């Protein structure tokens, strides 16, 4: 049994402690916004927040979040109106969209710690996350837009 908070809600899930958090989130709790991309912490599609830090849910056993607070894309904002989400839409960032939950969660962590990142800081922070469609330039623009509070 794993017990933790997800998006503000206490949950108890009947899984073994070594179960990757990703599958607990996606298949046991049916929060499918967090994606499976590689299973090796190589692509970032599974990025979620643990107490505000970014983690790779695909390689994190659920035991490490015991009693902690996890946030997924579904819990990032009340009404899907996080400045990054508004900027993502304004810049029309997503193409296939599959990596974008992870990208947004990663970017949200950046803005939490640095409200006005330079282009270099954005690229260095986001370099962990793969996008096969090549939306990288628009991700940078959207983060800049969100940081400026103009989305």
């Amino acid at each position: 049994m794993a017990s933790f908070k997800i998006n503000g809600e206490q949950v108890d899930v009947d899984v073994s402690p070594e179960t990757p958090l990703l599958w607990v989130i996606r298949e046991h709790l049916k929060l499918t916004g967090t994606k499976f991309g590689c299973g090796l912490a190589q692509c970032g599609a599974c990025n979620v927040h643990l107490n505000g830090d970014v983690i790779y849910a695909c390689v994190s056993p659920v035991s490490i979040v015991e009693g902690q607070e996890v946030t997924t894309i579904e819990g990032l904002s009340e009404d899907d109106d996080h400045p990054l989400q508004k900027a993502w839409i304004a810049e029309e960032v997503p193409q296939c969209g599959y990596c974008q939950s992870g990208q947004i969660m990663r970017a949200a962590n950046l803005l939490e710690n640095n409200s006005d990142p330079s282009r270099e800081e954005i690229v260095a922070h986001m370099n962990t996350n793969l996008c096969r469609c090549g939306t990288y330039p628009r991700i940078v623009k959207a983060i800049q837009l969100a940081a400026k509070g103009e989305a």
Partner: protein
Amino acid sequence: MTTLHKSKSSEQTTTPALTRRDFLNRSAGVTFMIGAGGVISACSSEDAATSTAPPVVSSNSYTPNIWVTIFPDNTVEIKYSGTEMGQGSSTHTPMILAEYLDVDWQNVKVDTMTTHDQRYGNPFFQNNLYTAGSTMIMVFSEKMKVAGVQARKFLLYAVAEDWGVPVNELTTDLGVVSHAASARTISYGDIVATLSLPTEVAELEESDYIPAAEFRYIGKDLIRDDVADKSTGKAHYGMDVQVEGMSYAAVVRAPVEDETALSVDDAEALAVQGVTNIINMGHMIAIVGDSVEATKWGKAKLNISWSETSRFRQSESQATLEQYKKAATDLTISGPVWNETGDVKQALDSADQIVDALYTSEPVYHAQMEPLNATAHVADDGLSAEIWVGTQTQSLSVLGAAETLGTTIDKITLHPLTMGGGFGRRSTLHQQYIDDALLISRALKRPIKVIWSREDDMESGLFRTATAQYMRAGFDADGNLTAMHHRVSAPNNLPTMNPLRWADAAPKDVITMLGSESTTYDIPNHQAEHVVQEREARVCAWRGVGTSYTKFAVECFIDELAEHLELDPMEYRLQLCHNNSRMSNVLNELKAMSAWGEATVPEGRARGVAISGYSRSLSAGVVEISLEPSTGKITVHKVWAVGEAGLIVAPKNATAQLEGNIIFGLSSVLRERITIEAGVVQQANFNTYPILRMSEVPELDCKVLLTEHPSSGCGELGLAMIGPAIANALVDLTGKRIRHLPLTPEIVKAKLNA
């Protein structure tokens, strides 16, 4: 509001206002219409006919043609026969109909089709529902336009007849018909709810078409419908499917094609809590359980012996490449001619000088971000099924599934879902992951969700084939290019991708050969020849299909010819396409943007140029690179790119496609390489098959020209020019030409030191 007596009974299907036969008779030949750019263009009667079935009137809706249905509440449902993988056509294709019907996009519901129906099919793909080749806007824009105009005209006639006013005094504005002289208005919904339809409508005329100056949607950059859900985690992919009572399945596929599991030691796997079944299907082993993690843990504990008898056991990447090279340069071996102008043999025989070069390319992997998966529920009798999957083709998914189950397509219910990337990977007749789900579900009589791991996805990948390409050019005594012979030594793709299409297309394999025709250049004698090779790996269409290597050979070769003639490569290209005004415009724009030949290139850097294009779309690019000689690492600092795809429905999205293509192409050129040893793919995940990351993306200056040519596609525009542009720049930088893809650091270092 005028109250009118509705002349039809509630369940009646009225006599069509215009029968299909009437329409065909009247519109035999061509129907003239105003093109989107205001130019009169001819639309084939086939285009008109496919959007003109008899109107269907029911108690609560009106279907003026097969593409659109209007409801009393002003909702408009528009059919979309493609699928969405991020290219945007699920918004932009139906939006063209909405434009010409003149309705509020907020009231439009896009109805993605779910089954095979040739009336809605893509003529580029045997009238199958098939989203590939950047064809959606190109193929369907004319159909959408005709369907929208025609539907609007039916509505206007209904009002004109009822109100007793001339139809040409009526106007429309976002789903409302007005008659200014009598100050009357009626919504489309109310027309459907209250008016009877006219019995006859005149043929479509120029004046029926909303002029380009009044467009609300085309060229206006409305945000795509799928963007918001993809920014909030709400988009629904195949991976996200949940079906009542389903079990999960992991699979182990034969590491070498065509092999069979001889024995499976599954005792330890079955002991894993949550694992319920292990099934040996021969070509793969299914591990079924009540959670994803159980299936993965069970999979790790299997011990399998494979047959080891497949001919693919002999497959070695380097040997394959050597074999393809040998055949490419052996002129005694001939093959199917893909494209021909003039007499290349005679022209080369009589040439004053001949230049030749041999190029090679290695396999690459699709790497769509969503690992392949499918969910299926086969009925207990094994003869009908429901399938949930991200697919590029409703038709082939249904046809393939029916074949697998030995049933008919009407027994297959498909739910085509948005794709986490396609790039050609999901375009085959038999999609392995669908077949996996069907076979396991049939065996266990319950819904099964099959999830491939990234390793399954890569190791069982269908790759862009390895190629060798031998180029020969002939010049006359004055240095004029008189002939070019482009020999592509590579296997066929279509026989394994889609035998139904191959039956029609053979021996011409568009997937292998596209781009080798080089029709943008004015070369009097040209032949593109396919030197057909044995297939040594699984192969499939990969974004841009053949162009990503054929354009590499052509565009590197053009630079070699320019060098031979001591001409600037940009000027030589302009000279060779002086008869092609569209390509000339693209090149001249690129030349200006990049200040080619005028800008000072920083020390240690060099520039290269190449053109590509895809289908009817054109593109060209300039790259600026530097090289770290100690490692062979190429850095691309800047890319200038120009695309031209006719009338653009959504310019911002088109530019995003061009950018994405360039990054996709760049990734394949600088990083990606699949190698095969003893038939086994040597890469398994993104640590051994790295794709481009954000820090490696150059500054991009991309421009899509806005023209009035017929619309074509942007989904593969620009990808193919990146490789040759980099290779050409490398010659400028180092004096050495590398005639090979990819240009990974180790390959560049080895070739430069060779």
